[in-house]
């Protein structure tokens, strides 16, 4: 499973299935500061993911 981080780096994880909350927790990312898409579609953080899912974590804070 591919995880695209807010800084565009890519992590591959083997754990399957796993919740997005748990992934964010492991990455020390506060869920209130991001939105997360699975295969291009927005999903809540309590979604279970796995297999060939591509997960993108998008930081929402934007000064200005």
């Amino acid at each position, binding site marked *: 499973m591919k995880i695209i981080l807010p800084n565009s780096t890519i992590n591959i994880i083997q754990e399957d299935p796993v919740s997005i909350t748990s992934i964010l927790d492991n990455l020390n990312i*506060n869920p209130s500061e991001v939105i997360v898409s699975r295969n291009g579609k927005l*999903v809540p953080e*309590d979604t279970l993911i796995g297999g060939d899912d591509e997960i993108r974590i998008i930081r929402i804070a934007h000064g*200005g």
Partner: protein
Amino acid sequence: MNQGNPVTGRSERCTLCSEPPVIRLPEPERHLCAAHLIADVEERAARTISERELIKSHDRIAIAFSGGKDSTALLVILSRLLPAWEDVSLVAITVDEGIAGYRNDTIRAAEEVTKKLRIEHVCISFTDLIGDDLDTLLIGRETQACSVCGILRRKALSVAAHKAGATKIATGHNLDDEAQSVLMNTLRGDLPRLVRTSDADSSGCFIPRIKPLAEISEKEIAAYLFVQDMFPFLPECPYTRHALRLEVRTMLSAMEQKHPGTMRNLIKSKRAIEKYVDPSVFSEPLRRCRVCGDPCSGELCQVCSLRKSLGK
């Protein structure tokens, strides 16, 4: 109604229909699909406008439009609510501070959105206003970036709004921004600013400011735009790292995550304090700046004081 898994709380369906959810929201706890999220956000913005009487017939609303997510959401929402009001018009105003590697992208995004929504769009730059861009003004004083930029941005917006004939200035401040401001003013011990509301000005000297998104969280706004393919993927302002707001934002969002409702409670506290404090106690008599003649509380307005300190 779909209650989700009673053990994990996880839901594979929207609380209101059978579509897949895109967001989980607290208070009340619910999962919403894209269509219900869009409806929920727009209804709450409309309710804020109606309950606080932010927009009246014949208003011309100048939207402070950076091209970032909050002002983009504001523009989209107001353009959709527009038919409900009698003879109200919108104009988007973008301030180009002159921040290399940042503002050009957001201005391009702003132009695309206004074109798509067919909303009148005007730009005003710091160079027009003061003769230099922000990057030049800040050489050797980068840590003052947000206060210098804030003063000039307010002035630029006001100049452009007056020129456009606006009767209100709408900003994209969201629930998170409002809670951060309460905490920042408290940390600074700034009670006058804590109880002052920009829309309460009765002097007639300033264009009243309105915040239609003040009850909507930053995350809801981001999700609202993302599900409509309108989320602007833009760089963060390079000066943000110098801001107290950044520290407060990080602290508050951690508190919100751990103790949901923290942000709303902060705003509730501010409103409770407002009830017991007479804002006129803090308001100094309105004077005119001795340089430019603009209304202000001291001898010089903030812009002329800044000009003086910058040697401009």
